Structures are given as structure tokens and as C-alpha cells.
């Protein structure tokens, strides 16, 4: 059973806050949910499924459904880090196609900025994680687990710090038009490579922001989408994968996108050259380069050259990406960038991106997520969406 054209993204909402010390986590979730419901034109009573990743310790879907007083007949708590929300969209489409629900709400919220989170220090690992004892003694952090990929990519393919910096430059060119973006200043390649080294070869400006906030989307069956007044965004294809250390046969040069991407393209019946706009998960600059290669936008090893010289800048580059400013400049709520990737793709397909950055005739878009740590184990997901 294919999910192609079996569901539509009918609602999307990104919370405007980037710093929310005065709001609770559940309050942010609810504000995102109500924002997406209002955006869609549905009412809360139309929602009959809820999707929630474990983006806060101890918080459950049961608590959130009860807090918002939702009446649901389908629930999914898939947790694959920052890419969870793309997988939620895919699973919601499957549930809709199977007749298990009509309209699924997916929310993300977090307050890492208010809570003082950092990707440059080791995070507490759950006691049950089998890998903790093999990584904690070596002070593995979020940043250095991506830096290990960047260093190897430079060694194998000759990728340069300047090429990686172009990813940030493109994001900053876009963020200047986003009044809610956390970093609105345009930066240069020199700014990036001269910023402090956090974990070589990644500099501070190779890293995404730490922001509070959240977002929500609603996936609904075609009959509902067609009755609403909003532009219609259909889901054509989806893929997902988890990639790890392969029992010690480690290959840092391929991400889960090499599995998830081809599955999504095959289901959608399109190729990378058909894509008009791409939301590419940008926890770090290297994340973007590797996913572009693995999705087939360029050959393995050529990602550095693909993104260089403005390759990702809307209006002039070969592939407009992350026109909201992405995680690198706009927003990375809960240290998870998957939701905002979906939301900006929906904006582009609806023609609701910033006029300076709106892709002309944007009828086909891709959203790609990588959650967890690229250099140890990560979830990956690809969505392909069409304006109809």
C-alpha cells in the first residue's frame, strides 16, 4: 500500500518565540497545536489522532492529550530525535490510509535556551542506553559527533571549511528576511571560518542555534483537505531509517538519508532534479552536505562543491534550501529541527514564504531530517510533498 496522495498537510504553525522563560513546556505544545488547528480551518474536535515524540523526560502523550482535552482514537509516540516529526507525518499518512484516523495533530516544543542547554558539553544519557558506557568516558558531545563526520569528509573528499561555511552563509542570507529568526545578520565565509573552533573542524558558526519554541502540523485525509480553504499540499512519498555503528563496521560517510531518500523518491515517482525547494536538516553545516549527497542531489563527495559559492541561496543558487533561515539561523526548538523543516516546505508549496525567497512555481518540495548524532547513531526521514 502506497501513501501517495492518501493524505494532505492541512495545517502548519511555527511558534514565534525563540526565548520563553515565562511559558511552560506543555503550554508551548498547546499553543503550537492551537496555532496549527487555526491555520488549517479545522476545529479541535476534528482532531482524532495525536503524535508526540519524547522531547522532554517524563512527559507523555497521555499528559498532553489530557492537558489539551483532545479526543483521539489513534496515537503514536515514535521517538527518533529531531527527525521524529517527519516520521510522524509518514506514520499519520499510513494511519489515515488504513482508516485509523482522519486528522492527525503533531506537536513539538522545547525550552533548551531557557534551560541552558549546550551541544558542546556531554548530555546525560539514559541509564538504559547500551552505548553510554562506550561513549561517556570519551566525552562524546553533540558537536564532536558531527565533527568526526566533517573531519573524515574533508580527508576522503577534500571538502574544505570554506565550503561548509557556505551552508551557513546561505541560511543567513535567508534569515535576514525572517523577523522571528534568532540570528538575522548576514554572515560571510570569513565570519564562519574565523569564529571560535568548538570541535574541530566545526566552528561556532557551523552550529545551529539553541532556541526555545516549537511548531505543529496537521495531516488529514483528502476529503477533509478538499473541503478546506487553504492551498492543498499532498504527501507523495516518505522514507525512514535508523543508522548506527553497524556492530563496529563504522562508515561515517553515509547517513540514513541514503536509505530513507530513495524510498521516498520511489514512492513519489520523482527524482532529485524535479525538486523545486528542499528543507534540509541543518544541525550543523556538515549535516546538510552529507544529506544532499545521500539524497542524490549530487554525487557522494561532491557536496562541498554543490553548496559552495551560494549553491543553496534562493533566487540564485542551484537548490533553494531552508528559506526560513533553518536551524543554523532561525530556530531549533527543543534541539530538534524536523518540525520547522516540514513547516517551511509547506509555506513554500502554499506560496506563503517570504516574497524575497518564495520559489517560483514551487509545486514539489522535499523535507529531510536527521535526528540524534550523525557520528554515532541517528534517525533519518524524507518527505516529498506536492502542491495540488
Amino acid at each position, binding site marked *: 500500500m502506497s501513501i501517495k496522495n492518501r493524505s494532505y498537510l492541512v495545517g502548519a504553525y511555527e511558534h514565534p518565540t525563540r526565548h520563553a522563560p515565562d511559558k511552560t513546556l506543555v503550554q508551548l505544545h498547546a499553543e503550537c497545536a492551537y496555532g496549527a488547528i487555526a491555520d488549517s480551518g479545522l476545529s479541535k474536535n476534528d482532531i482524532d489522532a495525536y503524535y508526540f515524540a519524547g522531547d522532554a523526560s517524563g512527559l507523555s502523550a497521555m499528559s498532553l492529550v489530557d492537558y489539551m482535552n483532545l479526543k483521539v482514537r489513534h496515537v503514536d509516540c515514535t521517538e527518533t530525535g529531531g527527525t521524529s516529526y517527519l516520521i510522524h507525518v509518514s506514520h499519520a499518512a499510513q494511519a489515515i490510509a488504513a482508516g485509523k484516523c482522519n486528522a492527525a495533530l503533531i506537536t513539538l516544543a522545547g525550552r533548551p535556551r531557557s534551560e541552558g542547554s549546550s551541544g558542546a558539553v556531554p548530555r546525560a544519557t539514559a541509564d538504559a542506553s547500551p552505548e553510554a558506557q562506550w561513549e561517556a*568516558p570519551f566525552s562524546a558531545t553533540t558537536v564532536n559527533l558531527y565533527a568526526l563526520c566533517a573531519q573524515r569528509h574533508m580527508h576522503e573528499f577534500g571538502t574544505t571549511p570554506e565550503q561548509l561555511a557556505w551552508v551557513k552563509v546561505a541560511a543567513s542570507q535567508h534569515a535576514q528576511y525572517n523577523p522571528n529568526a534568532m540570528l538575522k545578520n548576514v554572515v560571510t565565509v570569513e565570519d564562519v571560518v574565523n569564529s571560535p573552533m568548538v570541535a574541530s573542524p566545526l566552528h561556532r558558526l557551523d552550529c545551529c542555534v539553541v532556541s526555545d519554541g516549537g511548531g505543529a502540523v496537521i495531516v488529514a485525509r483528502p476529503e477533509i483537505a478538499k473541503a478546506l480553504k487553504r492551498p492543498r499540499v499532498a504527501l507523495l512519498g516518505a522514507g525512514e531509517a535508523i543508522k548506527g555503528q553497524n556492530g563496529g563496521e563504522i562508515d561515517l560517510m553515509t547517513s540514513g538519508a541514503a536509505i530513507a531518500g530513495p524510498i521516498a523518491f520511489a514512492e513519489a515517482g520523482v527524482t532529485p532534479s524535479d525538486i523545486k525547494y528542499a528543507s534540509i536538516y541543518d544541525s550543523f553545516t556538515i549535516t546538510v552536505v552529507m544529506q544532499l549527497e545521500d539524497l542524490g542531489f549530487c554525487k557522494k563527495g561532491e557536496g562541498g562543491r554543490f553548496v559552495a559559492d551560494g549553491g543553496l541561496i534562493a533566487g540564485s543558487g542551484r537548490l533553494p534550501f531552508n528559506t526560513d533561515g533553518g536551524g543554523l539561523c532561525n530556530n531549533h526548538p527543543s534541539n530538534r529541527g524536523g518540525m520547522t523543516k516540514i513547516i517551511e516546505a509547506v509555506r513554500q508549496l502554499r506560496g506563503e514564504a517570504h516574497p524575497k525567497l518564495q520559489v517560483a512555481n514551487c509545486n514539489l518540495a522535499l523535507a529531510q531530517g536527521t535526528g540524534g548524532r550523525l557520528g554515532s547513531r541517528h534517525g533519518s526521514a524524507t518527505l516529498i510533498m506536492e502542491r495540488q
Partner: protein
Amino acid sequence: MSAKIPSPAVTTETSAFWGKANDGVLALPHCQACGKIHWYPRANCPFCSSDKIELKPAKGSGTIYSFSVSRRGKDDSYVIAYVTLDEGVTMMTNIVNADASALKIGQKVRVAFVPSADGQKVPMFEVA
């Protein structure tokens, strides 16, 4: 002993490995059913699922697969790395006692056991 090195949370599944580490032996799990070596150590082979796992000493030498010089606080740094052992598996570790600015992927390294915060020795590597 270094307070900066967090001690591993040893489990019943891995206590044999860590015991050998305290004796200065880097042991690798060999599957008696399929013959493959895996990393990290666990009760069942991640390739064939067999529970017939035997810990055998490794040569203790390998090459740097990748590394990153990471800041720890304002004035300190350390080198996290993946080292591919001569036996074929690649493990996460730290490179110690090295000039970090001179490190290169492909460089030969040798295991050196370093006591962590609670005294448990952990396998790190020095330039060979």
C-alpha cells in the same frame, strides 16, 4: 586518575571486558558461531545473534579513522576519535599525550589505559 574522565556505567553484560581493561588488556568480543568480531561488547553477536561470545585480547594497535579536537571549558581540550583496530572493528576513544595540532587521519596509534574518575581504566590511544 582523572576526574575529567567519566567512569563507564559497567553492567553485568560488560563487566568481564572492564575487568580485563583494569588488567591492561583490550579484549574484543569474538563470535564463536559466525567468527566475526564486533564492537561495542554485548551479550549477543550483532551479526548472527549467537550468545557464544568469547573475549580475546586484541593486539592493541590501530589507525585513526577520524578525530576532533574538542574544547572542555575555556582552557582545556581533548581529542575524541574513532580508531580502527588492526582486527577490523572501529571504536570510539580519546587520543592522549599527543600534539593535537599534528594529528592526522590514518596515523598509527596504540592503546593506553587511563584511569577514570572512580579508578576504572578505560582504553584510550597514543600515537604509536
